């Protein structure tokens, strides 16, 4: 039918996303402490336990102590995790279980505004997770360069990328169980193949080829050198890949969610 074509029209973005973002913020404020703990504890313990425990058995990795190596990966992994969980589980609750989006759509707010708010909201939450790890890195004295400050805006981009990808999954999900596929087929492989725990160069070539296409690889290629005070060698490519995933992911999420809710 003709109306189906309209699902593909360009995003119509407006500042009306703001009250929706504020709604999520108000909910988060009530549950801030358990929510922060949940997001933080997991990556932090991985970094500390593996970094010091496993690291004490290892020689330097790429010329730096293992915990320092791990720190760059953990900032990205923590940001990815937090954005993904928010866009998937919390987003799905609001869209499908609580019907919060339906209520909002009856006000003068469009679905595009809601999706934009969810994108920014998941990125906001993941920003806190990324920053918390960065703070720990600074407190432990694992980074001494002013260049590391460039990681702050980068974490926003990384959060937007994984929030956008997560929202596409939410858009097609029939239930919470469906998210297992995304974790098993996308998130876990990325954690293992993109250089969080060891350099990608240790993988056989065919796995390296896969890794080169994954967004987390590009996030880590940016963050790890910056922590050491080096300019990332392929910064333009890395940024373009992350921005590309973010833009394509958001557009796909928009089309798929319009198809789901505005039919």
């Amino acid at each position, binding site marked *: 039918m003709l109306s189906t074509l309209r699902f593909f029209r360009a995003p119509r973005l407006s500042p009306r996303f703001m009250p929706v973002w504020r*709604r999520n913020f108000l909910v988060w404020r009530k549950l801030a402490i358990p929510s922060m703990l949940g997001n933080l504890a997991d990556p932090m313990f991985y970094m500390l336990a593996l970094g010091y425990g496993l690291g004490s058995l290892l020689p330097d990795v790429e010329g730096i102590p293992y915990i320092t190596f791990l720190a760059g990966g953990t900032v990205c992994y923590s940001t990815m995790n937090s954005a993904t969980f928010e866009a998937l589980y919390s987003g799905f609750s609001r869209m499908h279980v609580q019907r919060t989006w339906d209520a909002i*759509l009856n006000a003068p*707010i469009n679905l595009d505004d809601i999706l934009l708010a969810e994108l920014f909201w998941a990125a906001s939450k993941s920003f806190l997770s990324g920053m918390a790890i960065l703070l720990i890195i600074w407190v432990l004295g694992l980074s001494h360069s002013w260049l590391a400050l460039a990681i702050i805006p980068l974490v926003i981009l990384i959060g937007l990328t994984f929030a956008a990808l997560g929202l596409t999954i939410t858009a097609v999900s029939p239930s919470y169980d469906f998210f297992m596929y995304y974790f098993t087929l996308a998130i876990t492989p990325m954690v293992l193949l993109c250089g969080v725990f060891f350099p990608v160069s240790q993988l056989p070539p065919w796995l390296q080829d896969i890794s080169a296409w994954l967004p987390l690889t590009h996030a880590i290629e940016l963050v790890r050198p910056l922590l050491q005070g080096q300019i990332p060698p392929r910064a333009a490519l890395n940024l373009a890949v992350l921005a590309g995933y973010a833009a394509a992911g958001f557009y796909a999420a928009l089309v798929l969610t319009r198809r789901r809710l505005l039919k």
Partner: protein
Amino acid sequence: MPVLEARGLRKFYGALEVVAGVDLAVPRGECFGLLGPNGAGKTTTLRLCLGLTDPDGGEISLLGLPVPAAARRARAKVGVVPQVDNLDPDFTVRENLLVYGRYFDLPQRDIAARMPELLEFAGLTGRAGAKINTLSGGMKRRLTLARSLINDPDVLFLDEPTTGLDPQARHMIWERLKSLMGQGKTLVLTTHFMDEAERLCHRLSIMDHGRIIASGPPRELISRYIEPQVVEVYGEGVREWAGSQGAGLAERTEIAGETAFCYARDAQALIAGLNGRAGLRYLHRPANLEDVFLKLTGRDIRD
């Protein structure tokens, strides 16, 4: 100019035409009801009028604005009570109203100023700090209704506003809706409760299979389609009675399950005949909207 006007509305889900050429015109201050069995296309029609889904054909104008093109501007002066409660379970009663007001871009102090009035309207003045999951079904419905008034709308859309409520709660909602009509608000509601439609609506349309099959004020629809008197007969041997005696005394007889519905201009002869029959019981009543509804949409179950 009508507050809501739709011409030739059509909507397909795949090959199924769920709205098949609907025309509506609701003048200011009217309570208009859309009646129909499940799956008749009522909710889809409301969604089309609000600009929540694009029509495959036809034109809609809401508060003088074209929909869906200017639906967002139109919705700024519209309130909606959805079929399924979607209050925010993470918030208190007060926060629900506050957050909803922000969706309309209302300044915080305007929302705060309206708050006491809305809480009172919902009968929840003492419960402003209560969590949503501690409220009864009737309280939730009243809060949803109050929430739809946060922007002081000119027109309210209510999708089955009293479905699932007990009689006390339904009467309370009706009383609230009447007071809104008293304030001059335009109401558009869907329902499949005939007493609700008869009680509230100035005018209504009966919808089936995506089409409007009858429209008019409730009393007029009854007199147009149904004989004024109804005798419902039930008991031992009702079918046999209806086939022989009943058919001769009533203008029209319908059998549904173990009951014969006899429609007549004058029911005196029918009743006289029934009084002599042991084993048969009857109920004599004036015709109502449900009779019209069942005559026009049939007695078959819809799923």
